[in-house]
């Protein structure tokens, strides 16, 4: 992240949070829960991928499976779930257990894939995701196979049921905001700086004294925790979890969200999730009911073709075009880029 970006990141993030906090007062409940709320919970899972890809350079396709690990763990433990697998464990205990399970799964995925990079990392994480999906689908005793586990309604918060639109929405929003802040904080700590160093030059990182593989596995653990938090909320949103939640389609959806939103900043995951959710919800109204997926596909293709780095990349280029003279003289990249792109006459006049 350049210093120029850092300057507006905090106020922009707070403004966005304020808008998202006030929006439910102005829009129908359907929009609050099924568009914004849904986008936020899946956006958290997508952010775990964005975190790994942006700061570590690791594109993991196992993140939805890891999210599902937490979702299944909670579904297996909590009372009221149908069928009841273990049951009887209160949410206050089941949720931390789910987060722990997802973190452990993240570490495991990181460990197994530690020697791979690029397309091979994609393949190995995809195989792990699909493998767990198939296992869960075949296993009746623990996961109730194809049917999955229903009626996971979520905890009561301040005496209100989780199914309440506002309880669900504000819990999801608060969780997303906290994890988003965690990511932005973490990348400024020695742990996060070393992770970015690993992305840029693993050989040098080792030569400086870092155990590069261990650092990488730890990053997958953090991403696992984030995905797990998203996975638990996804489970509450769907009032249960089934193998389809962590299948190939769901895995690709997460990837699509991250990519159309744009890698480079965690906010991209949520932008992508909102766009994805809007199209996923309304494409069927706009276009032939049997073929609405074609429209969804074409729109995503258009976004990625127009801007390979997603909506964030589009915004960046727009900003550079509108402000040919950046304010910060330390912002070396932007200065040189704008200087070469902008016409000399306007540069002299400003």
């Amino acid at each position, binding site marked *: 992240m350049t210093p120029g970006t850092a300057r507006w990141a905090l106020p922009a993030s707070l403004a966005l949070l304020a808008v998202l906090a006030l929006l439910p007062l102005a829009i129908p409940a359907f929009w609050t829960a099924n568009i914004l709320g849904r986008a936020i919970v899946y956006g958290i899972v997508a952010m775990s991928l964005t975190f790994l890809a942006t700061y570590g350079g690791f594109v993991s396709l196992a993140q939805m499976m890891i999210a599902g690990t937490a979702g299944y763990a909670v579904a297996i433990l909590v009372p009221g779930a149908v069928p009841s697998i273990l049951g009887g464990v209160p949410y206050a205990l089941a949720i931390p257990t789910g987060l722990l399970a997802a973190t452990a799964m993240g570490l495991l995925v990181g460990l197994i894939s530690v020697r791979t990079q690029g397309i091979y990392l994609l393949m190995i994480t995809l195989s792990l995701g699909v493998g767990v999906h198939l296992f869960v689908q075949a296993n009746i005793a623990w996961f109730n196979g194809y049917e999955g586990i229903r009626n996971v309604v979520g905890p009561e918060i301040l005496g209100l049921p989780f199914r309440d639109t506002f309880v669900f929405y504000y819990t999801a929003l608060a969780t997303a905001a906290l994890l988003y802040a965690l990511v932005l904080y973490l990348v400024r700590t020695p742990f996060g700086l070393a992770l970015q160093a690993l992305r840029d030059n693993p050989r040098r*990182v080792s*030569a*400086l*004294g870092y155990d590069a593989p261990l650092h990488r596995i730890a990053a997958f653990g953090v991403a696992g925790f984030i995905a797990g938090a998203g996975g638990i909320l996804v489970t509450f949103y769907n009032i249960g979890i089934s193998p389809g939640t962590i299948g190939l389609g769901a895995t690709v959806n997460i990837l699509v969200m991250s990519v159309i939103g744009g890698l480079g900043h965690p906010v991209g995951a949520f932008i992508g999730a909102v766009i994805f959710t809007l199209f996923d919800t309304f494409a069927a109204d706009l276009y032939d009911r049997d073929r609405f997926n074609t429209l969804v596909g074409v729109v995503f293709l258009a976004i990625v073709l127009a801007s390979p780095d997603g909506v964030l990349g589009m915004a960046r280029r727009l900003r550079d075009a509108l402000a040919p003279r950046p304010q910060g003289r330390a912002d*070396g990249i932007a200065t040189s880029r704008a200087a070469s792109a902008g016409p000399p006459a306007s540069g002299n006049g400003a």
Partner: protein
Amino acid sequence: MRPGGEETPALLLQGVGRRFGALAAVSDVSLAVARGERRAVLGPNGAGKTTLFNLICGDFPPTAGRVLLFGEDITALRPHHRARRGVGRTYQTSLLFNGLSVRDNLLVALRGARPGRFSWRLPPTADRAAAQLLAERVRIAALLDTPVAALSHGQRRQLEVGMALACEPRLLMLDEPAAGLSPVERPELVALLRSLPRDLTLIVIEHDMDIALPIADLVTVMKDGQVVVEGPPDRIESDPMVQAIYLGHGRSH
């Protein structure tokens, strides 16, 4: 001539070799570098100088021989364990963290050989002060907030040295630190190398004799993966074999 006298050398190579398939990049190199010594390694391109550095810092293990650091056998250790034991180096082509600022590059380098590599707390004031100090030492203090990708070649070389110094190495290996530097920057580099603490052991690969010879206590000349001559700078300069190597292959710099 040799500071440290008869005590354990900082670096001892015993019959070290490295083959890549049929190619012997380095073969049977034995070398002792005393504590606090300044050693220059000369030789034509392809002589195996950088490979020798890679064997010492552990980028790949030697296929023959042993590497001893201050008497400890480090032949089988991975690079990060060697770094924690005091091996620091720079690279022929700068290996920097291009997505980070100069300050963050130095902060990463500072933590490498110290505890707290996994720390989730913001870099403490001490780290930031140390980064500032290092940047001043290598004359890039004005650029601390600049993204590394925007640095000039000379500035990248300076940061490269700053990052190697950040680990407070006991053995510092510089791989062609003057490569691509302007005539103005070269004397600055020599001054920087001269200012290094005397207890630091330094090995420099350098084509440019004007930089290598003034700072070197001893010079090792390599050719075809082997050490051909070793001796004090004044003897090396007039050595007929060295002249043959350099004139014969044409000095590229």
